């Protein structure tokens, strides 16, 4: 029952949602609304409580046992607590906005900006013209990198048009091919789960 129950639910709900897509009747739309908007959101919110519990326990144990980097865990716990108190206490007031504008926003932007440095080090280390395909890739990448900045237009006024052509034709064809393959794979994997062929997500055989 422990394993059969979820499989039966997956089968029924899976086919119900497939058929729902083809039925425009208001009852069908209501079913979608209830399942996706109401049930899914309610379940997600409750599971966030599990997440919060896991987060708190993980960092609490690190602090209690004074494991390496325990002070970072203390900061994480205090930051979460302070944000929750200010959020609920001031009801999204100016102080809460200040946390967003002056702490969260710069931190997230900084993390994203690491990409510029990392792409440079990864490019220097890994982008090698080992064979014909890699050489072709490197040449195309160089053309696109130059064409996507004003310097490219400064070098040759037609370079941005060449780059647009690369993006509109070879790139688009490749993206389409990948989309089709991934789409078929998604359907197959979803079908395997609905039909109960794929059961690893339940845990155990």
């Amino acid at each position, binding site marked *: 029952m422990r394993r059969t129950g979820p499989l039966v639910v997956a089968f029924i709900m899976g086919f119900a949602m497939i058929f729902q897509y083809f039925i425009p009747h208001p009852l069908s739309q209501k079913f979608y609304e209830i399942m*996706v908007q109401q049930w899914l959101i309610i379940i997600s919110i409750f599971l966030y409580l599990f997440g919060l519990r896991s987060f708190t326990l993980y960092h609490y144990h690190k602090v209690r046992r004074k494991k390496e980097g325990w002070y970072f865990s203390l900061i994480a716990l205090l930051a979460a607590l302070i944000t929750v108190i200010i959020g609920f206490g001031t009801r999204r007031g100016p102080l809460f906005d200040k946390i967003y*504008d002056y702490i969260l*926003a710069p931190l*997230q932007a900084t993390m994203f900006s690491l990409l510029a440095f990392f792409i440079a080090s990864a*490019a220097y280390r890994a982008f090698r013209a080992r064979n014909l395909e890699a050489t072709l890739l490197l040449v195309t990448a160089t053309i696109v*990198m130059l064409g996507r900045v*004003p310097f490219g237009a400064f070098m040759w006024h037609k370079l941005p048009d060449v780059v647009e052509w690369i993006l509109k034709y070879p790139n688009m064809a490749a993206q389409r091919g990948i989309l089709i393959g991934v789409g078929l794979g998604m359907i197959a994997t979803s079908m395997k789960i609905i039909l109960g062929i794929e059961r690893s997500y339940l845990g155990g055989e």
Partner: protein
Amino acid sequence: MWEKLLRLDRRWIFVLVALSVLIPLLKPLGLPMKTTEPVLNLYTYIDTLKPHDKAVILVTDFDPSTMPELLPMAEAIMRHCFARKIPLILYGGMYPTFVGMAKMALSRVLPDFPDVKYGEDYVFLGYIPGTSLIILSMGESISKTFGNDYYGNKLDSLPLMQRVKNYDQVALVIDLSGSGTPVWWIIYGYQRYGVRVGCGTTAVSAAQYYPYLQTGQFVGMLGGLKGAAEYETLIERAGIPPGRKTASIGMDAQSIVHLMLIFLIILGNIGYFIVRRKR
């Protein structure tokens, strides 16, 4: 020497990148900007809309991490709409952290347009949970979907929302996003209700949206910082106040960083071939 160069500590590369960004910001090069077709298409679509007629919905589906690329797009499009008197509905996005970006853009743009009236020329919808169902629900009734605006006013009490009931009164939805949400607007907005969709996205994601541009599912697209800079240039040429032009300022730095990257790749490959030949 080449072996040492190939094993160069990555921190030297980080220093080179940092200098490549900082120096052009302090000493701008003023390189000219050429407009590309996807950006021009989006600009022209908005520019030819009738004033005080159908609205544009601008969705800020991004958080502070992609703010450098996407916030300038939001500001430029807002400026364009305000200057052309196109009614604007600002939707704070599908996740709670995205609303702050819409607020930030508004706070930077509004001082340059003192005659723009809230409730008549623009409305700010906040955040409500629901992702794809919000898009579907707005097709029936925007006021019923949200109830109140970000500031707590009943949407039915606002003159703009009394006129703009659903997508029938919307000319264009522009989704600014660093993730896959523009495709949701095509699936649930365009395919279902026929509302036209435009997109602004990060440079990394721009390549994957060309299939949708080619089929006409997107009317146009702003890709990355360059897309934002091109739009700023277009509105400036049209006599609209462009603000600080943060994207255009960043393009000089991006030009130098790209050149630096190309130099590093060439250097790495030269070193690789020389070392390989020695062995």
